[in-house]
């Protein structure tokens, strides 16, 4: 099976749904030896079909049920063709053909085309207004219809039909469920549970027509109602077919692959054609075509291992369990559900609280269960049934209580998870065991269900195991759970993580992009906000100076465009003037540029630079080209200016050459991104004409050396700088400045000025790192050098890069005619 040559194998997946993509995810965990292409008919990346009912009822948006966004495909090197139908497979030539006439070769092919709604073979079933409930387009159709028409009929009182009906009621439609049988969900529920369910759904506004056989969809091109076998009619302008699903087998059949009810597969998901596999709802295994999610994942796991050449037990079929996803209605069923002679029945019913629990035994073996109202025990029961476990006194006590304890649900739950073995499955959808979850809580320090979801996949699909995961958190973290999960101050509304946690996670988990940080750390807004995105971009650049690709779109306008936006939407331009020193030639050029572009004002800034104000955005690159001076970063969280006094070169009091030192420092540290803006000054004597006392880093010359002041601020909250140390030589001065800057860069919170930072971390810690521990200083200096090596002049980049110029600086001028 293993291919030992270097030749990469080409894997094609037809069907961009949950079964196929889950298989790919499992393959990617095992091997990277495939070149993968995915063909999907829908225009969306892979989404959580199980949660469509949430989209319909409006509690989730489509982007919230996307499981793998387009970046996932890109990041994994998967070629994605959405909106593309594959029409034929040639198993001999090992090629597929699309409806657009394209063709592609494969070494292995997975068919995961899923299923479609079963449309009743009655007259009128193909009219406008008749839809299924399978995909986003169906959802859209129903939402649109609810805006135009009033009455809906849902054919089918099973899982899908009930979820659709609830969604339609939520959309304000008068909705009737038409069911052939005399009880709802008759393939999962017994009479008692079905009755409780029906009563509850009626309370929620759904109407029911039981034992009704539809014989015709009425209408003249557009549906107007249904007619039943007994001759009665029901008015409905929207008819939802939810009476079952049919595997999508046309492609396989047209390609000569063996098809029964579904595409026939063996225990390794192999079809009748060599190297062609099928998974999910489109396939039929040992005579069964499943329509629920858990079997699809189990099939995917077997197929992934088989394709990757890993050892795997054959797929032997799935024991299925069901959960209904309607808010406020908790129903669960697994295994046998209808009591028969030979069953031992354990039952508890409470019509006051609306609770029902039934467990069926054959002998001592647990063979089925139905829960209504409280489904806390669902995951455990599903597992017991799957394994054919025996009922014991202990288990009985756990499930039904000893009759003496108080109703302490949480402690009962805790006991249940405690007794689980490490290899017991918690999340059946994604195959996550108790051991997996305990590990990420203990080893990786995860403290919330969301974090666990991101890391392990548990709770990601149907969400049914969420109570169990919460119980595990409670048990593993003990009293710390509530404390640690109590809302704390996150860096913005999108997260509860503070800067320290984010920086630690970026380092430890080697996160390399803003999106990845947000995904891994469980951001509530998937794309963040204007507060966290610039912060994350800063932290990433600080931590990975050479690897991180600056994410310009995550920067605030000023840093994105390298100019300072003004209140009228124009910009200001401040060229670099090292140490505040200019020349007649430079001034001449500035003057010419100011005239040429009609600059509204020319002003000397507080930091000894010249500011050209009122420049149109589209003129920025041209102005910079004409100026031919580096960017002064007057807009950035970076070194702004090094202000200097005249110093020893001209001043009769000067003891040090402050101008030369200022220029040297500015040239050294310009372009370095910082947590906040960073201002410096160098003075030639203690008279301090360039005001070192209110700078982030202020230097004062004296006879025989320099004194370094830090953490001053002349802004909102004026703070006088503290003396850090005195140094004797220029080299030492450069080293202390470099180490100090890097220490601030690494420990400062984004947007935290040095004055606040110094108060937070304490000057003793700064002295320790920068002065007292030579080995630490050495490392800080090495790292600052690494970061400095990356700096390029952004103005030059802008005017010499055509695409930057176009995408960021030019507006579109169009004519409406």
């Amino acid at each position: 099976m293993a291919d030992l040559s270097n030749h990469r194998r080409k894997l094609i997946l037809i069907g961009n749904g949950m079964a196929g993509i889950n298989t790919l995810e499992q393959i990617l965990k095992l091997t990277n030896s495939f070149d993968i292409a995915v063909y999907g008919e829908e225009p969306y990346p892979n989404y959580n079909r199980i949660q469509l009912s949430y989209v319909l009822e409006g509690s989730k948006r489509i982007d919230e049920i996307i499981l793998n966004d387009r970046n996932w495909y890109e990041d994994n090197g998967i070629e994605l063709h959405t909106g593309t139908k594959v029409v034929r497979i040639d198993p001999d030539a090992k090629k597929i053909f699309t409806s657009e006439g394209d063709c592609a070769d494969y070494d292995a092919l997975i068919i995961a085309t899923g299923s479609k709604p079963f449309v009743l073979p009655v007259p009128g079933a193909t009219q406008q207004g008749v839809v299924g409930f399978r995909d986003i387009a169906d959802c859209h159709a129903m939402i649109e219809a609810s805006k135009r028409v009033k009455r809906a009929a849902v054919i089918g009182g099973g899982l899908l039909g009930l979820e659709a009906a609830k969604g339609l009621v939520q959309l304000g439609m008068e909705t009737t469920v038409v069911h052939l049988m005399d009880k709802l969900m008759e393939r999962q529920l017994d009479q008692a549970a079905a009755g409780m369910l029906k009563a509850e759904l009626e309370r929620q506004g759904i109407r029911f027509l039981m034992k009704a056989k539809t014989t015709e969809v009425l209408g003249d091109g557009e549906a107007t109602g249904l007619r039943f076998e007994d001759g009665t009619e029901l008015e409905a302008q929207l008819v939802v077919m939810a009476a079952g699903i049919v595997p999508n087998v046309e492609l396989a059949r047209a390609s000569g692959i063996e098809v029964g009810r579904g595409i026939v597969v063996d225990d390794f998901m192999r079809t009748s054609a060599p190297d062609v596999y099928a998974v999910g709802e489109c396939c039929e295994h040992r005579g069964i075509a499943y329509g629920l999610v858990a079997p699809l994942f189990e099939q995917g796991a077997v197929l992934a291992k088989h394709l990757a050449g890993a050892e795997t037990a054959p797929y032997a079929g799935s024991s299925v369990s069901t959960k209904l996803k309607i808010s406020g209605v908790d129903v669960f069923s697994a295994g046998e559900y209808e009591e028969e002679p030979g069953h031992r029945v354990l039952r508890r019913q409470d019509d006051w609280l609306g609770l029902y629990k039934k467990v069926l035994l054959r002998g001592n073996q647990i063979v089925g269960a139905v829960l209504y109202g409280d489904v806390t025990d669902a995951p455990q029961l599903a597992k017991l049934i799957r394994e054919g476990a025996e009922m014991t006194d202990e288990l009985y006590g756990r499930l039904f209580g000893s009759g003496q304890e108080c109703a302490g649900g949480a402690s009962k739950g805790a006991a249940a998870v405690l007794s689980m073995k490490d290899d017991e499955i918690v999340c059946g959808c994604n195959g996550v065991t108790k051991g997996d979850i305990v590990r990420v809580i203990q080893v990786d320090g995860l403290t919330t269900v969301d974090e666990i979801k991101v890391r392990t996949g548990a709770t990601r699909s149907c969400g049914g195991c969420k109570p169990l995961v919460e119980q595990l958190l409670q048990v593993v973290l003990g009293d710390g759970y509530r404390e640690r999960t109590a809302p704390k101050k996150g860096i913005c509304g999108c997260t509860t993580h503070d800067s320290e946690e984010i920086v630690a996670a970026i380092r430890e988990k080697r996160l390399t992009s803003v999106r990845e940080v947000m995904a891994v750390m469980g951001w509530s807004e998937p794309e963040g906000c204007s507060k966290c995105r610039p912060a994350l971009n800063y932290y990433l650049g600080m931590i990975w100076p050479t690897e991180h690709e600056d994410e310009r779109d995550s920067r605030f306008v000023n840093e994105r465009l390298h100019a300072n936006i003004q209140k009228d939407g124009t910009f200001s331009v401040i060229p670099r003037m090292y140490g505040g020193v200019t020349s007649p030639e430079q001034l001449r050029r500035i003057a010419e540029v100011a005239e040429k572009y009609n600059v509204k004002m020319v002003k000397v800034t507080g930091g000894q630079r010249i500011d050209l104000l009122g420049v149109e955005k589209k003129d920025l690159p041209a102005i910079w080209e004409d100026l031919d001076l580096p960017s002064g970063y007057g807009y950035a969280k970076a070194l702004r200016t090094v202000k200097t006094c005249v110093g020893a070169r001209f001043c009769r009091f000067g003891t040090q050459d402050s101008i030369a030192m200022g220029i040297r420092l500015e040239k050294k540290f310009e372009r370095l991104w910082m947590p906040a803006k960073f201002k410096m000054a160098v003075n030639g004597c203690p008279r301090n004409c360039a005001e070192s006392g209110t700078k982030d880093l202020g230097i004062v010359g004296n006879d025989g050396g320099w004194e370094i002041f830090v953490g001053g601020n002349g802004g909102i909250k004026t703070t006088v700088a503290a003396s850090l140390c005195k140094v004797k030589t220029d080299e030492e001065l450069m080293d202390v400045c470099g180490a100090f800057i890097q220490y601030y860069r690494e420990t400062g919170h984004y947007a935290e000025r040095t004055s606040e930072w110094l108060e937070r971390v304490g000057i003793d810690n700064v002295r320790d790192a920068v002065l007292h521990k030579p080995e630490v200083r050495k490392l800080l200096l090495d790292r600052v050098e690494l970061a400095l090596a990356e700096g390029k002049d952004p103005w030059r980049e802008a005017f010499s890069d055509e695409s930057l110029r176009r995408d960021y600086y030019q507006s579109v001028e169009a004519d409406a005619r």
Partner: protein
Amino acid sequence: MAGSVQRRELAARLLPIGRSGCEIGEKEANRVINREQLNFAPIGGLSEFPRGLGRQVRISDWDLAVFRTTDGALYALENRTPHPKGGPLAEGIVSGHYVYCPLRDWKIDLEDGEVQEPDTGRVRTFPVRIEDEAVLIGLPSNSDR
């Protein structure tokens, strides 16, 4: 860096844009059509609107900000924040289906122009349509503004 830009462009070409953006535009269009006639005018090719950015579009005497979200959808809004002191919107940070005003950090919903709490106000929106690779904006055909 160049490599990654190329890759992104390639991906954008390979992956047809999601339909959701267009649909929202169409829906908006239908709503507006009931009140007034719209004239869909081309403002350029799809590739001129990089994802995750806003772009100023001047058309006739309209000043618009056109945003393309990371999922590929396009939105057109009047290029002015509803704050009494105004200012352009096109330079804002785009996150999901929101833009953050570059001057005062107001959060504005791209789909309906609604300013999010705690601030209030609404920015006028315009329907966007994509035909082949061309981007069209629905503008009122009379002088109704």
